[in-house]
């Protein structure tokens, strides 16, 4: 299991490094949203709830954009068939794809969060950065699980680019609630209070449940 996951992960990351088809797009997209928000809201700087909301929406949309491409090569160029012929557990593909998505999200955030602080955020980013990384990490796990499961569901339908986001957005809502509420005090002026434990607990719980569902159901999306 571990070896097949590692092999799949290597394949996905190598393909991305050679083609650079997804990651730069995700980064550019999130930065474009920051610019868009500046003009749409007519604000040169934001803080608190507004800042948390813009950051999370930008990251989610970037994730949806990346998820649309996550399985396309496998579906169109025989990656699924090759995988199904190999004598390895099918959950290996789920673990590998979720990990790929997590890596993409982390890479996007490494660029997008500083860019957000530079372009829009009024209060300094440093004091709450440690907590923000934790909140983002907890949110990313859930986002990666949802978009991977939904992308696997949508990729072999007609109009797959439409169904992915449509199905994923309602499912992402608890993560937006938990993530945005937890990051809001970290992006405010004044002394940084720690995020309320209940949002962190909510994110963790949702991640766990999503992990179980994805693990239980992913196999059924692969059969042929």
């Amino acid at each position: 299991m571990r070896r097949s996951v590692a092999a799949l992960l290597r394949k996905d990351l190598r393909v991305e490094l050679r083609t650079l088809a997804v990651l730069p797009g995700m980064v550019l997209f999130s930065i474009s949203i920051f610019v868009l928000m500046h003009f749409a809201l007519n604000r040169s700087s934001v803080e608190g709830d507004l800042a948390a909301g813009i950051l999370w929406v930008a990251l989610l949309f970037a994730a949806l954009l990346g998820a649309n491409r996550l399985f396309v090569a496998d579906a169109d160029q025989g990656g699924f068939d090759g995988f199904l012929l190999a004598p390895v557990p099918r959950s290996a593909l789920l673990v590998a794809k979720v990990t790929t998505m997590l890596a993409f999200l982390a890479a996007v955030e490494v660029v997008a969060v500083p860019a957000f602080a530079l372009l829009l955020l009024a209060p300094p980013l440093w004091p709450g950065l440690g907590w923000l990384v934790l909140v983002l990490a907890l949110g990313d796990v859930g986002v990666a699980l949802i978009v991977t499961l939904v992308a696997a569901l949508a990729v072999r339908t007609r109009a797959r680019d439409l169904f992915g986001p449509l199905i994923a957005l309602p499912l992402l809502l608890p993560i937006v609630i938990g993530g945005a509420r937890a990051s809001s005090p970290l992006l405010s002026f004044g002394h940084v209070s720690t995020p309320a434990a209940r949002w962190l607990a909510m994110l963790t719980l949702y991640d766990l449940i999503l992990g179980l569902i994805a693990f239980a159901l992913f196999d059924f999306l692969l059969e042929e």
Partner: protein
Amino acid sequence: MGSTPTVGKSARLQGVATIALMALSLALVFFYAPLEAEQGFLQKIFYVHVPLAIISLVAFVLAGLLAVQYLRTRDAVWDMRAWVMIDLALAFAVAALVCGSIWAKGSWGHWWVWNEPTLVSFLIVILFYAVYRPLRAAVEDRERQAAYASVYAIVGAVFVPLNFLAVRFSSAYLHPRVLGASSQLPGPMALTFLVCLAADALLFATMFRYEMSLRRLRAMVRALRRRREAARAAAALTEQRRSAA
């Protein structure tokens, strides 16, 4: 596909019983249940709104169980049941949302109140399940369509209660609710509520039964048409051969 697909005597009886119970429940709402002290007549929409909401949510979760059953047995009838269940539950959910909106307008003066978690959760659940049918239509292969739809239904069944918890968590404060638990209601109100719940549940069951038999009937008609066309084609072929010979 199972026994006689037409709507038989017992189904018709069930339909009549549904109409009777619905009439009884409405009579209780308007003539038996007392006026609520604070909201007065407006509160009566509660007897329509809450049962619709409860039944649609229970049905979404049940549809998930039916989908599990499909994935275990691979019998297409379970998938069809889950499909009909979700279609009806979606209709009930939309009705509950509309009632909730009317109630919000009456008691708080706004058609939409973000602080009312039930209303917001319903919108999200409706947005999620609204994609169920288009997704089915977008998958041509029958078995794959059923498998995908089942995965969808199971994810939804888990998501619905979680979503309610999350949205409830997110409201800064909760409006005082007319109903915490039906046990807090005074006797006549509780009785009326329970009768309404039973009437709506029966309505759901009856609609489910009719819709299932309708779809079975449609499938049979389609199969018969195909057979007739095949027979005609075969007859035309033999005719052609005879005239050629």
